[in-house]
């Protein structure tokens, strides 16, 4: 596989974020492990919750499955050693989720690893640190910090950024690291070109 090493990119990369072209098979209704749509599932060996500070800690084989919003997108899975969830004091949305130790994030053909991942509801950012590496079918991104801006669908990397793109992806319209979102099926009749 031929690769080209791009010169050091600007410290802040803003890349188009789109889901990989992979279709998820919806869970069979009534299946034991079926995840209700729109529900995030966290499984672990051990759980501790303290209602005084509203902190829940998961340890041992921690795995998160985040189903996609659209059925033609793959789910996101996260595995780590320890996961800390900070719940709001007066109900409402989660304040933060922190994954520690051998963090692995997968979505379709995209694969990210790092020592720590932090999600903060205030910014809606996921920050991957501790030698973060993002690998997709189009290439590899490294940096001191890799940030996923969920609200705006952007990916950023800061500090000692290094990106490798596969040569065959360079020059394409969808040459972002993650690639273009596959076109959604439509019932519209294609327009014939005029002679």
């Amino acid at each position: 596989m031929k690769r080209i090493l791009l010169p050091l990119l600007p410290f802040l990369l803003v890349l188009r974020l789109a889901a990989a072209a992979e279709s998820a098979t919806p869970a069979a209704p009534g299946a034991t492990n079926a995840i209700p749509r729109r529900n995030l599932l966290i499984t672990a060996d051990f759980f501790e919750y303290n209602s005084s500070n509203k902190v829940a800690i998961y340890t041992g084989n921690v795995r998160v499955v985040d189903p996609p919003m659209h059925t033609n997108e793959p789910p996101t899975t996260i595995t780590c050693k320890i996961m800390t969830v900070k719940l709001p004091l007066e109900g409402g949305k989660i304040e933060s989720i922190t994954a520690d130790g051998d963090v692995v994030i997968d979505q379709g053909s995209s694969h990210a690893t790092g020592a720590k991942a932090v999600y903060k509801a205030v910014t809606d950012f996921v920050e991957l640190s501790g030698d973060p590496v993002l690998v997709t079918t189009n290439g590899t991104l490294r940096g001191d910090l890799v940030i996923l801006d969920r609200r705006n669908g952007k990916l950023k990397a800061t500090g000692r950024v290094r990106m490798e793109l596969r040569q065959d992806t360079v020059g394409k319209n969808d040459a972002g690291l993650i690639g273009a979102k596959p076109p959604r099926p439509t019932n519209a009749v294609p327009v014939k070109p005029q002679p």
Partner: protein
Amino acid sequence: MNMSLAAGGLLVVALLWLAPPLAAQFTLVGKVKDFKVPDYYPAIPGVATNRLKTLLTGSNAQPQLGGLLLVNGLRIESFRETGPSESVILAPQCLFEMASRNASSTGRLEMFSSDGRFSIAGDGFLWRAANASLIISNRVRTFIRKDAVGEFDSAKPEPPQPVAPKP
């Protein structure tokens, strides 16, 4: 000096002798139906008293050795200081210790947040009333509704859901 030491010793012996009967006053005899143990937030001057913190209930409770109670049909509801319900814990059975107010079991537990955004289930648990903490020791499964994670705008219409075929 010796007299005061002797008097002190007698006092200790008397207290030790009295202690078991005092504790025995709270011992349950036989099966108790509609078992309830409320716990309240500390009273604040000028604020309404009896603000319920947790309410542990059981369909029945049976005394066991070691000051434990076997509670069937456990339900623990937690309340915010402002009054509304926060979460509900359900378990078929547990051992409850009156002195520490701890409930534990090797069996199944389910916990739901009252707003429906979180649910947790697992096997084997320890619930401590003192700080309303919960430990689940095996096979933990948590469901978090997406609108609790901030990415989903509940104002947006929900995409159509596939209808499960009826058997």
